[in-house]
């Protein structure tokens, strides 16, 4: 006899599944109380240590303020990348994610989106503050926030790919950094470049355009290469 009608599974639909996974990822990212505090704390530490290391004289700091903020942004984005896939592989949740309604490619993108919201967003808000502290002209603060927001998406996507590649490796965190940092060069160059051009009076638009192009490009690569890496580690 066939199953009662109401027992037919109501597929959550792509929007539903995406929302459900995103909520779970954000909950996991912000669980344990830390939440965005961890990323901002790391950013603040970097910004505080630098003047102590290089001298507090604004003349030496302010020309590099934008660059330092972007370096701190790249390094801070590396935080908690290991959590993105490694934990799920260890406790078997990755198998569950692989047989859901959404393909693995979407799962990788949603995890990157969650990483961007959980780590990228708070960093984008902290970046201008840190840059100002290092002597960046106030007028550049909104641009610093905007470029950090866009760049953060690139870091989250390429970082997710790095996390997937490092699955099953011993020292995962360190490996992700070595694998991923060379791929972070374009966003850092375009992001810091935007600030530099704005500081010298030129329009930052081309740099921001390149930055956005990189993010879209990284999205496509991360989805396919990331899914292949996850399947490889799972199988």
């Amino acid at each position, binding site marked *: 006899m*066939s*199953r009662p009608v109401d027992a037919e*599974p109501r597929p*959550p639909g792509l929007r539903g599944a995406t929302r*459900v996974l995103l909520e*779970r990822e954000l909950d996991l990212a912000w669980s344990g109380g830390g939440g965005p505090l961890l990323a901002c704390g790391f950013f603040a530490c970097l910004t505080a240590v630098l003047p102590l290391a290089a001298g507090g004289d604004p003349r030496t700091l302010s020309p590099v303020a934008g660059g330092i903020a972007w370096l701190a942004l790249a390094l801070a984005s590396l935080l908690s990348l290991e959590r993105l896939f490694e934990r799920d592989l260890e406790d078997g949740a990755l*198998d569950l994610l692989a*047989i859901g309604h959404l*393909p693995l490619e979407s799962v990788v993108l949603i995890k990157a989106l969650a990483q961007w919201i959980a780590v990228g967003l708070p960093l984008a808000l902290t970046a201008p503050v840190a840059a100002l502290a290092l002597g960046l002209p106030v007028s550049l603060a909104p641009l610093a926030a905007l470029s950090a927001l866009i760049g953060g998406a690139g870091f989250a996507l390429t970082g997710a790919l790095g996390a997937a590649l490092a699955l099953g490796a011993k020292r995962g965190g360190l490996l992700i950094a070595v694998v991923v940092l060379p791929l972070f060069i374009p966003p850092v160059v375009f992001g810091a470049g935007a600030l530099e051009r704005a500081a010298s009076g030129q329009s930052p638009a081309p740099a921001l355009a390149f930055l956005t192009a990189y993010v879209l490009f990284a999205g496509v690569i991360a989805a396919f290469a990331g899914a292949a890496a996850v399947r490889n580690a799972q199988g």
Partner: protein
Amino acid sequence: MIHALSLSDLTVSRGGRRLFTGLDLRLQAGEAVALTGANGAGKTSLLRTVAGLLRPDAGEIAFHDGDGNRLDDHLARGREVHFLGHQDGLKTGRTARRELGFQCDWLGHTQTGFDHAVEAFGLEPLLDLEVRRLSAGQRRRLAMGRLVGSPRALWLLDEPMAPLDARWRAVFADQMRRHLEADGLILAAVHDPLPIPARTLDLGGLA
């Protein structure tokens, strides 16, 4: 809706080691098959291959619907297959309610799916506890909740009842019986025989 599963001439290896070769199996709706064999014979690998998590060296896995034509693999696995492995796939930091909720939402549930699962496996007292605080048996019952909460035709179970005590084994046996009566299919790797009528497929102790 999966009505039949057929494996033809399946060859699977893991970590460079050939586990089995030339394996054939046909599973019809309402049937259960128990996979037996020594440790390392490839029971888990066979289940993972059917679930699409492991790529076979050779051979064919086909899912057919009621009138025999073949379903698309990704669609069938994404909508009609449950895989319950050794690990429960639960996040220790979250509460049981959220984890069961996620599992049912993620796999596609009916309106009453969540409550049905809670009632079937007596999860009511556990819902507000963090998974970290649950015992192995309780976690396994929570993981089993998704089998009931999100009705899917093909159950792939890897020693499902290992951590359960006698009482909950009987409950799970009853759930399996109901699943088979509702035209479900079960492929389970076991050490002791299944408490329901089932054919046996021995993978042969290759170890």
